[in-house]
């Protein structure tokens, strides 16, 4: 690809995404359908802005799927994965076996040779991880029962691809024999030879186990230190580079030893799910994943062969309908066997009824191994692609038509199992200031999510069982993954004032529903925060100073209640003056320096107090005037 060509493609893809996705979202279709439609439009059967290179781009973009699985792994604590073992093995196993069997039987009934029928059954039993997870995330369904179980089944299918790749050549019809290059590169086909090529099977197995063990051990004991070292440089882009390096490295390693790169990165994700840098990694990889997945969906759209479809629309339509219908029924049955509630079962079945992106690779692989004739494979690839396109629509139908009648009982109920638990309060900065607030809230049963930039502190707080997010809290993505869209209020308790102002800006822009309570070290900071639009400002020394003042008054013989009320009165005036002076400041000329400003503020403050308007807050207990009246009566 020449440079010019690259820019042209980038222009086409980005423009297509930027135009079609917002429109699709606006129409309530979701971003994936937007990408897919964009792909169809710019593709060889649309306005022909891209041709066959769409296929190459798809292979490149499949890297987005790898990243997605890494991110999914990151959100999955090993303990949670262990708890999901039932659904993964049970439901996933049942779904794949039943679908393979039934689809194969139907194929045989239509006169397809037995071996080919089994291959078709296996390949079509898979569902699209990319589309399902992305749609569920977008709709906020990942935490529901249906979402978790869909994820479990998809995970099983991703694992099942590996034995399928090994098994397909066995099904070869005719004398082609086994293709030695069992390129199990389901996502990003590596043209280079496998390292394990020519090794005996037992050695191959050892290599595979060794590689998996290496990932687990490195993830647990080594990677954390490396990231910690990199984080200390405080160079964000180096951290991002390290994160990408990790994923690409694992993907490469997996491809070279004949394993699925997606599974490898998923495993790495799970291992790192407990690490301090989980959220930082998440924030760094997320935009790459999003863009690459978008690219992937566009290329899926572009690769749909409309010539083939227009040649035999009835057959294709029948295959698509049959595929979706059969898978839907089987999924419903699986859900029933595993006692899912009706509404969640519907979600589960509608979500997983399509073909998989693995199918493109597997069908091509099957053709190469003479398991399937090219024509059949092309037909099925077109059908699978269209079934993927239909998925967002099916989920829409489920959401708008089916669910209202079944009753959406568990929509994002946020059970203990849910991948994302959302707390109503976010505290940014958990130093001496924020920790007191956090303790008070937790003592009263209020869930608190903590954002903290100090990695040593993060470690400690996590050990104490707090939900802590590590990273730069002024960034949109970190706020987002911390659940800012679901939270009710955010408390800014860090001591970096500049960062806090940046955060206020981000929050005001992206999460305007959040109430902001902010710490300020002095009046000047308070003014700036108020100007930035913070709801409430708390000067960190005010209350402590006043308490010392109360005790000083008491030590001098003042009544406790009098001193208490005096401090309340003082505080009321002081807070009021902050608001008043913050407005006054704007009347001044812009050239007043900050230092000069501080002196002027103090001057104004002292002057207003010297005026000493005698407050009669205690007049209700003052009988002087009544005594005067009584003396007149006498």
């Amino acid at each position, binding site marked *: 690809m020449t440079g010019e060509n690259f820019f042209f493609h980038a222009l086409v893809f980005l423009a297509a995404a930027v135009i079609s996705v917002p429109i699709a979202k606006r129409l309530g279709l979701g971003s994936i359908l937007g990408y897919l439609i964009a792909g169809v439009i710019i593709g060889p059967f649309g306005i022909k802005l891209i041709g066959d290179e769409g296929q190459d781009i798809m292979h490149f973009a499949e890297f987005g799927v790898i990243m997605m699985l890494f991110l999914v792994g990151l959100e999955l604590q090993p303990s949670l994965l262990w708890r999901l073992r039932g659904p993964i093995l049970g439901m996933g196993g049942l779904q794949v076996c039943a679908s393979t069997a039934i689809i194969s039987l139907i194929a045989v009934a239509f006169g397809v040779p037995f071996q080919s029928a089994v291959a078709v059954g296996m390949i079509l039993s898979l569902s699209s991880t990319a589309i399902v997870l992305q749609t569920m995330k977008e709709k906020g369904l990942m935490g529901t029962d249906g979402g978790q179980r869909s994820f479990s089944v998809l995970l099983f299918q991703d694992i099942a691809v590996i034995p399928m790749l090994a098994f397909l050549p066995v099904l070869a019809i005719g004398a082609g024999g086994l293709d030695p290059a069992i390129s199990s590169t389901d996502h990003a086909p590596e043209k280079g030879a496998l390292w394990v090529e020519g090794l005996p099977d037992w050695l191959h197995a050892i290599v595979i186990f060794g590689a998996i063990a290496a990932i687990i051990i490195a993830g647990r004991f080594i990677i954390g230190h490396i990231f910690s070292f990199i984080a200390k440089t405080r160079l964000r882009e180096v951290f991002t580079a390290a994160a990408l390096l990790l994923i690409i490295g694992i993907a490469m390693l997996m491809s070279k030893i004949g394993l699925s790169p997606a599974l490898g990165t998923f495993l790495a994700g799970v291992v790192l799910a407990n690490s301090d840098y989980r959220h930082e990694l998440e924030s760094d990889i997320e935009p790459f994943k999003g863009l690459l997945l978008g690219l992937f969906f566009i290329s899926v759209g572009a690769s749909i062969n409309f010539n083939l479809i227009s040649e035999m629309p009835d057959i294709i339509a029948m295959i698509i309908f049959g595929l979706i219908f059969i898978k839907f029924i089987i999924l419903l049955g699986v859900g029933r066997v595993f006692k899912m509630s009706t509404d969640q079962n519907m979600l589960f079945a509608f979500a997983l009824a399509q073909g998989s992106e693995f199918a493109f690779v597997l069908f091509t692989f099957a053709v190469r191994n003479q398991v399937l004739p090219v024509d059949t494979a092309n037909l099925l690839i077109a059908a699978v692609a269209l079934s993927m396109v239909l998925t967002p629509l099916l989920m829409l139908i489920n959401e708008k038509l089916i669910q209202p009648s079944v009753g959406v009982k568990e929509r994002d109920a946020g059970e203990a199992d849910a991948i994302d638990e959302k707390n109503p309060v976010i505290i940014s900065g958990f130093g001496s200031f924020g920790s007191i607030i956090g303790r008070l809230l937790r003592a009263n049963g209020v869930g608190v999510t903590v954002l903290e930039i100090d990695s040593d502190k993060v470690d400690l707080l996590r050990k104490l069982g707090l939900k802590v997010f590590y990273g730069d809290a002024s960034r949109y993505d970190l706020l987002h993954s911390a659940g800012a869209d679901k939270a009710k209020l955010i408390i800014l308790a860090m001591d970096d004032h500049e960062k806090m102002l940046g955060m206020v800006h981000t929050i005001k822009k992206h999460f305007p529903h959040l109430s902001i309570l902010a710490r300020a070290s002095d009046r000047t900071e308070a003014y700036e925060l108020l100007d930035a639009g913070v709801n409430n400002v708390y000067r960190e020394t005010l209350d402590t100073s006043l308490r010392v003042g109360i005790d000083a008054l008491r030590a001098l013989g003042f*009544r406790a*209640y009098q001193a*208490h009320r005096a401090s309340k009165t003082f505080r009321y005036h002081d807070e009021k003056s902050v608001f008043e002076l913050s407005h006054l400041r704007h009347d001044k000329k812009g050239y007043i320096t900050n230092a000069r400003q501080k002196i002027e503020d103090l001057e104004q403050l002292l002057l207003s107090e010297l005026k000493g308007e005698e407050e009669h807050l205690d007049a*209700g207990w*003052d*009988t*002087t005037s*009544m005594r005067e009246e009584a*003396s007149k009566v006498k």
Partner: protein
Amino acid sequence: MESNKYENHILIIFAHPALQKSRVNKVLLGAVRDIESVTVHDIYEFYPDFHINVAKEQKLLKDSDIIIFQYPLFWYNVPALLKEWQDLVLTHKWAYGKGGIALRGKKLFCAITTGARESLYSKDGFNRFTIQEFLHPVSQLARVCGMHFLPPFVVHGTHSLTEPEIISHSEDYRKLVIALRDNKFDLEAARKFKRLNEHMDKVIIR
């Protein structure tokens, strides 16, 4: 507590939000502060933030035989903190209700000051009700808790009291508290009067 030495232990729950402005209560309080077997509990001084330590208060009550609510009558009522104190300290199953016998048999009365003269507290007077009527909530509280409610000690007309008059009242108060402590007090006789300090000579036993 020196409960062995004296017949009764007396607890004075004192409530005045602005004692620094007080003329009468300040002197009354000064007259009883140093009496043995009498605990003066100045609640506005203890709980300026209204955060009452219920267990501590209940312990104080339990260790006493006679309880006095001393306060200025503001708007015909107890000061805010004394109301909060009643609500929080006199709990169900402790002070009343099933098993709530902690206060049973103890004596309770109010020692109050009013700005207005005594004559204004009558059916035809400016305030339309008698002091006894204004004290109904406290008297009923005592009844529910199984306590004997005594007539109040009242200093009327504080707005026009002279210093010697105030001192005279404070001496009466002191005598009354000491007599109660030593069981030198004729309860039956006292019940016939509107207030304990109406005829001090007739109720204190020599």
